[in-house]
């Protein structure tokens, strides 16, 4: 019988060829050994591997791994999220951050909402809101969207579209009300003109880059020059 370690190695080997290859491998494992083995395998993956696995996922197409990613893995993967985005682009208009905004939404929503279990959503949100940029990340998925201010001003009374920033905020309100209050407070602090939103977006994206940068310090140092003594 194949051991979980071997299966993890098989997933890691598949990850070399990208997230969809690993997804196929996970599907094979699930078919052969069931969800309990899949859980064991996913829990062994590093945060960097998780990020490769979920890179192409969204709420319409979550990864098989999403249901088994632990809150700690989620937090570590979130910490590295900024590594995906170009650092060269300036945020001068809403259009400059909408792609990143969608990326954050596609990262957060499946992680927190895809199983539909409120207990899991609560644990994941608790972890995320414990991160210095957690509340900002949730707010970032909403800023500038149609009716987002109305949505924040009257929580729980608006119709929501499932699997979007709206459900993310709604679930946050339900299971982490103090976290929601923090997000609402952040929203109030943003100037309601475009400059305020742009400033918030630029600050958030920059901070996420900084978070991710620490994981690449080794590569940067390895490339430095050596001199004779």
């Amino acid at each position, binding site marked *: 019988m194949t051991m979980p370690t071997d299966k993890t190695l098989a997933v890691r080997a598949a990850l070399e060829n990208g997230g969809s290859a690993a997804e196929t491998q996970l599907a094979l494992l699930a078919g052969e050994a069931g969800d309990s083995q899949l859980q064991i395998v996913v829990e062994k993956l590093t945060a960097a591997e998780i990020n490769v696995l979920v890179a192409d996922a969204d709420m319409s197409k979550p990864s098989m791994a999403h249901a088994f990613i632990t809150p700690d893995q989620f937090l570590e993967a979130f910490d590295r999220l900024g590594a995906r985005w170009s650092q060269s682009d300036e945020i001068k208009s809403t259009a400059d951050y909408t792609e990143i905004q969608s990326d954050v939404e596609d990262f957060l929503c499946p992680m927190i909402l895809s199983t539909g279990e409120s207990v899991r959503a609560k644990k994941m949100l608790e972890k995320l809101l414990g991160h210095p940029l957690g509340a900002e990340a949730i707010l970032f998925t909403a800023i500038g969207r149609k009716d987002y201010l109305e949505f924040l001003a009257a929580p729980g009374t608006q119709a929501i579209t499932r699997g979007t920033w709206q459900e993310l905020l709604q679930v946050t309100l339900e299971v982490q009300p103090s976290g929601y209050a923090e997000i609402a407070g952040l929203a109030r602090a943003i100037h309601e003109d475009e400059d305020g939103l742009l400033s918030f977006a630029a600050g958030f994206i920059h901070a996420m880059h900084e978070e991710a940068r620490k994981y690449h310090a080794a590569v940067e140092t390895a490339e430095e020059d*050596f001199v004779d003594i």
Partner: protein
Amino acid sequence: MIPSNAAIAEYEEQVTSFLRRASSKAEGVAALNQHSNALLKDLRALLPAIKESPAYAGVAFYGRFQAVNLSLIKKLAADNVAAVAALEAIRTGKALRVAASAKVGWDLLFKENPGALWAAIYLNLCVKAASVRVAAVREDDDEVDEDQDNDDQLEDDDDAN
């Protein structure tokens, strides 16, 4: 003189504590690099601590040495050559390069505590816990020692990268 067993153990503990806390080897090395950057920046203030234990010098120079002739360095260690003589033999034998970012620290420690500098070299290049980040010498570099020890060291580096 090579570092005492206590200094070696302390160095190994400091390095492995970073690697243990990280979720992958690369992340542990990245964290160690950040730590070593901070130590190098404040190396002068660290001199008293380094005098107490050269392990701090080893961590400050983590990944900052590039062995060109590792067998010479190991032979100097095996022969228990005095620090100043060992450093001179390394220099004249062109057995080592130092990261440009650490050259100021090298010069400071060479002047203030050559024993600790020799210990830092030994800890980084001859103690297993440290061998994950010795940078590979490019093929076009001169005087590359082809002995097995060096090959092993470079393989370790490849593993780390």
